[in-house]
């Protein structure tokens, strides 16, 4: 068992939300009849509404990104489990100002089915809705099977870019194109040396996968899904090199490219380690003459208390550089 400080395991999502809303009530609110978190001022006049959502257990994702220059509404699922179509539909309705709504979601079967139904319902009511499914994970299948690839933390970069684009007053079509552009130019790869546990007991839960004392899993997914292979644990530099080589060859990234780098802790890997990892990433990019335009280092999309990290590279053009530079202000992501 992995130990946790919780009350009744069945109440973790509700109690987390209660605390979150109390702490950030100046910025966000919950819809009265649905487990949906929205910006306080929705619907925002003349702005395309932005909705995302997914299972809980990924703080600061998803609700931490509800704010100016980011998302307008988030449908909150149970731990690692898709929200219902009804919740997503409620979120779409709440953020629609008449300029249409874009849904951004990860490529997981539950999320895809529920978003599909919600979008159909909203369309039936005459709301203009589009959706973009994110699949940035190199660790979940070959390039030929892009439709099988999972979403990992590349979705954070999508939120940042589409949030800024919508804030500029762009139309739905253009906002959707930005989401697709970021997704097409983003690749991620994760690694874990220890599992996480879905709360299921009074003081914790069972680890959702097992690794030997000296093992790590390359390409691990956001819920502990197995990746490419299990190998003996290696140094920060050697592990990062494995991840980076896989990422670089996938698009592929080339000399002269400008990129954003996201080093994401999966839950229990320290910032100290993440900077050691970034050091290696920066070195490798320099050698390949790929310029780092901007970097994000920290916990951006966790998997409960999983021990590990992921690296995400996004190839940027002038538009994406401008959008990533734009200010953003949400409970758990602030950029001035």
């Amino acid at each position: 068992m992995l130990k946790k400080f919780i009350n009744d395991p069945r109440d973790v999502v509700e109690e987390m939300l209660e605390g979150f809303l109390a702490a950030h009530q100046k910025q966000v609110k919950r819809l009265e009849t649905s487990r949906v978190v929205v910006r306080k001022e929705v619907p925002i006049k003349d702005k395309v509404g932005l909705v995302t959502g997914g299972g809980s257990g990924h703080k600061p994702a998803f609700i931490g990104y509800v704010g100016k220059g980011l998302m307008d509404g988030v449908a909150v699922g149970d731990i690692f489990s898709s929200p219902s179509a009804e919740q997503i539909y409620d979120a779409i309705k709440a953020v629609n100002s008449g300029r249409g709504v874009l849904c951004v979601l990860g490529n997981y079967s539950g999320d895809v089915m529920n978003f599909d139904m919600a979008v159909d319902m909203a369309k039936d009511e005459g709301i203009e809705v589009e959706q973009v499914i994110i699949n940035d994970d190199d660790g979940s299948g070959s390039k030929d099977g892009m439709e099988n690839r999972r979403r990992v933390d590349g979705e954070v970069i999508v939120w940042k870019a589409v949030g800024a684009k919508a804030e500029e007053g762009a139309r739905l079509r253009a906002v959707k194109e930005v989401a697709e552009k970021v997704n097409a130019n983003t690749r991620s790869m994760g690694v874990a040396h220890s599992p996480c546990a879905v709360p299921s007991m009074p003081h914790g839960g069972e680890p959702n996968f097992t690794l030997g004392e000296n093992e790590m899993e390359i390409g691990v997914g956001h819920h502990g899904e197995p990746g490419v292979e299990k190998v003996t644990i290696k140094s920060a530099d050697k592990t990062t090199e494995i991840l980076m080589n896989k990422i670089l060859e996938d698009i592929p990234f080339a000399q002269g490219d400008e990129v954003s780098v996201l080093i994401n802790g999966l839950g229990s890997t320290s910032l100290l380690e993440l900077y050691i990892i970034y050091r290696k990433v920066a070195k490798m990019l320099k050698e390949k003459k790929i310029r780092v335009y901007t970097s994000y280092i920290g916990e951006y999309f966790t998997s409960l208390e999983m021990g590990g990290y992921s690296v995400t590279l996004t190839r940027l053009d002038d538009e994406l550089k401008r959008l990533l530079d734009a200010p953003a202000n949400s409970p758990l992501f602030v950029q001035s």
Partner: protein
Amino acid sequence: MAQLSDESDRYYTLNATRYTLGMQRCDLSHKKEKKLVNKENSSIKIEEILGNIVKKLEEKENYLNRLDAQIGDGDHGRTIVNAFKKAQKALLENESGGEDEAGSSDKNTDIGTLLKRMGRILAFSTGAAAGPLYGTAFIEAGKAIEGKREISLKDWVKLTRAAETGIIKRGRGKVGEKTMLDTLHPMVETLKETLARSEVLKKSSAKTDLLKEALLRAKEAAQKGMESTREMVSRRGRSSRLGERTRGHIDPGAASSYYIIEAIIKTCLKV
């Protein structure tokens, strides 16, 4: 509640009047003397079926959670119990309100409409992967028997086939991938076979209650289907990422769909 006796078998008819699931007697050799047994004894209310589904799932909740914990996140039992409880509550509220969305009284609601209504609640308010899949199954089943107040063996084939097709479309899955389809598919096939046989029997003078037999065989086929997932490797949904690790465990979705089928059939047959 009348137990099914040899005699009542023959005239085993269920009517859909108010929230009832009607079943047409399938004893084709008795076509001319189409007697209905007392409605009180023969008709089955859909809330009775739903009540039995919830009861069965609650009984199996922890077991389903444990199955899910082997290859998923261990909450399938809870998710599915909550989903059907919600559907039950909504249908009961709707009944006491006496009006459906169109504003007309429920008294004459047909089986198809009831199944669709139940499906919509399951599909839209459950979440996870189970909600859309179960919801779609009931919605499509309802569509297939739109307007019907009694359902014959032919209708059973139609509605179960529609449910299967709906699940395939919604989940983009197929048989053999260690999912609920592995429970549902053999059941549909068995019903189809029995229906084909009934066409032959129609010509002979054999007097058997085909519908009852068909449903019992269908239940058995579903159970075998569920058990067959134990040896399969998951190829669909989140568990598919565990590959070989999923072998040796019954799929929780295949199991819950079997318990639902079992509850429906047992209620219809009053066994």
